[in-house]
């Protein structure tokens, strides 16, 4: 009960933040009522998905300060669990999604135990490696379609089908992921104020001191890594139903892992709004850049150049991202 109250309690934010967040939430809710292009709708769905990825990453990466660059493998596990269960055994999304989360979390424990013996850069590099190995395995594993991937045929599963989450129009997907998004925000609002949230911030600050306060540092990190994983896996399952065509390259590639971490860092790692701000900037930028520059002039990889520039800017100017700049500005005014 106290947890629920805490999740719904945003009173430690200034009124202007709540006003902005509230009006944005209403805007999101009524957006489909206004005339819009399907491209804008697709971008918004991507934004919501990546916000959720970022929120998950933010638990271990932001509050815990462990730079995890291997989140894509859990997008893959979630996506493939849902796809395989649907195609092979006709098991619907709402059942396969939690199963995917279980697989992901189990895998995260297996990996997390040795991974968190590592620190700093070594940890980051190891997360990249594990994710890439899993991707390579999926590319040769026939049971999951190997490099060809899996396709959900609209003939076999005719839309609309809420149980299997198969729709013709994007607007249904939009509202489902928007629901996830709101739940995600409430969860994160609880998380940041929870005991684990505080312990993680203490760990990020100083591990030796955290231990002296009775915190089992290794276990706290593993637990949080599992929470991050659950977030990512859920959205991975959604990805399958939304895209209806998955392959290792577009669910588990390094690009996705980096993009997830980068968004949260750009917006502000370790803050509630950070990942959302980061996704709100990067996803539209990425979509529109691809659309305008990539497709027309044939310039590919412009988004990668952009990411590199953002990484440099963050590390040089403000490690706590855009939200860090806002906070610094506010502190100074007080």
């Amino acid at each position: 009960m106290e947890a629920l109250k805490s999740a719904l309690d945003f009173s430690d934010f200034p009124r202007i933040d709540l006003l902005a967040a509230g009006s944005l939430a209403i805007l999101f809710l009524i957006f489909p009522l206004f005339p819009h292009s399907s491209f804008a709708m697709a971008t918004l769905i991507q934004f919501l998905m990546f916000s959720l990825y970022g929120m998950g990453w933010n638990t271990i990466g932001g509050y815990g300060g462990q730079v995890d660059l291997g989140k894509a493998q859990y997008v893959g596990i979630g996506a493939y669990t849902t796809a395989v269960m649907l195609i092979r055994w006709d098991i619907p999304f709402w059942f396969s999604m939690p199963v995917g989360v279980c697989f992901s979390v189990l895998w995260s424990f297996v990996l997390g135990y040795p991974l968190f013996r590592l620190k700093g850069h070594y940890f980051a590099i190891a997360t990249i490696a594990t994710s890439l190995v899993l991707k390579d395995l999926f590319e040769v594993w026939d049971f999951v379609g190997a490099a060809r991937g899996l396709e959900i045929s609209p003939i076999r599963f005719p839309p609309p089908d809420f149980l299997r989450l198969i729709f013709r129009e994007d607007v249904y997907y939009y509202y489902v992921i928007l629901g996830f998004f709101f739940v995600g925000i409430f969860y994160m609002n609880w998380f940041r104020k929870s005991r684990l949230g505080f312990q993680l911030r203490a760990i990020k600050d100083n591990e030796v001191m955290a231990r002296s306060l009775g915190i089992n540092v290794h276990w706290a990190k593993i637990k949080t890594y599992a929470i991050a994983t659950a977030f990512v896996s859920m959205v991975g399952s959604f990805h399958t139903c939304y895209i209806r065509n998955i392959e290792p390259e577009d669910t588990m590639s390094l690009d996705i892992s980096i993009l997830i971490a980068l968004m949260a860092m750009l917006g502000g790692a370790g803050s509630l709004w950070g990942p959302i701000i980061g996704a709100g900037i990067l996803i539209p930028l990425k979509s529109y850049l691809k659309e305008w520059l990539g497709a027309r002039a044939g310039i590919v990889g412009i988004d990668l150049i952009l990411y590199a520039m953002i990484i440099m800017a963050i590390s040089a100017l403000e490690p706590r991202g855009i939200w860090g700049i806002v906070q610094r500005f506010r502190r100074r005014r007080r």
Partner: protein
Amino acid sequence: MALLELQRVTKKFGGLMANHDISFSVEKGELLGLIGPNGAGKTTLFNCISGAYPVTSGRIFFDGEDITDLKAHEVARRGLARTFQVYVASGDLTVIENVMVGCFMHTRSRNRARSQARDILRDLNIEDLSEALVHELPVASQKRVTMATAIASQPRLLLLDEVAAGLSHGEIEEIMGSIRHLHEDLDMTVMLIEHVMELVMKLSHRVIVLDYGEKIADGDPETISKDTRVIKAYLGEKYVREHGAG
């Protein structure tokens, strides 16, 4: 039964003997000073007791339980808290949040942690710093925050590592008042490492002296200050020969 008991504790770093064959015990309610020249192995001993370092040999008992092989967080949960000489934190924790982390050892509830933390800060007279960022505070205040955080975990034994180093005279008086308050009003057993002799000699019931990793003296402050070996350790052999002991 002694609250803390060390039996022949030895700690080696490669070829370096940091603590050699150290035995002593701390009774419940005692206020014990641990002194010695730089590099004598005082902080290493703290690290061994609190589980930050594994000992090379010997046993450590806390309230009758063998804690020698426990990890740092397990030792802490049994009621042994410590502070650190240097507060290294770059983070964004405010003073009250820092203290709350200590409170969270005994509660899951954020509200309870917050109200306990507020009480502790009020108790140590640093209430007004609640919302400040710890790493932006002056050293004297940081030391009190680390003390507050350690106290928040409700320890039975508190190890203080040079809480008065680098403080002005007035600040030392204040921190002495705080330590006395913890000991007398909150019934904490305290063991402190200190270079500021004024503080050690005024506060401690008993003083243990380390030199080159060995225990060279153990007694009340009066006796210790006249002990030849202690004077030798601090002032050198030559001084003792020329001036005589005591």
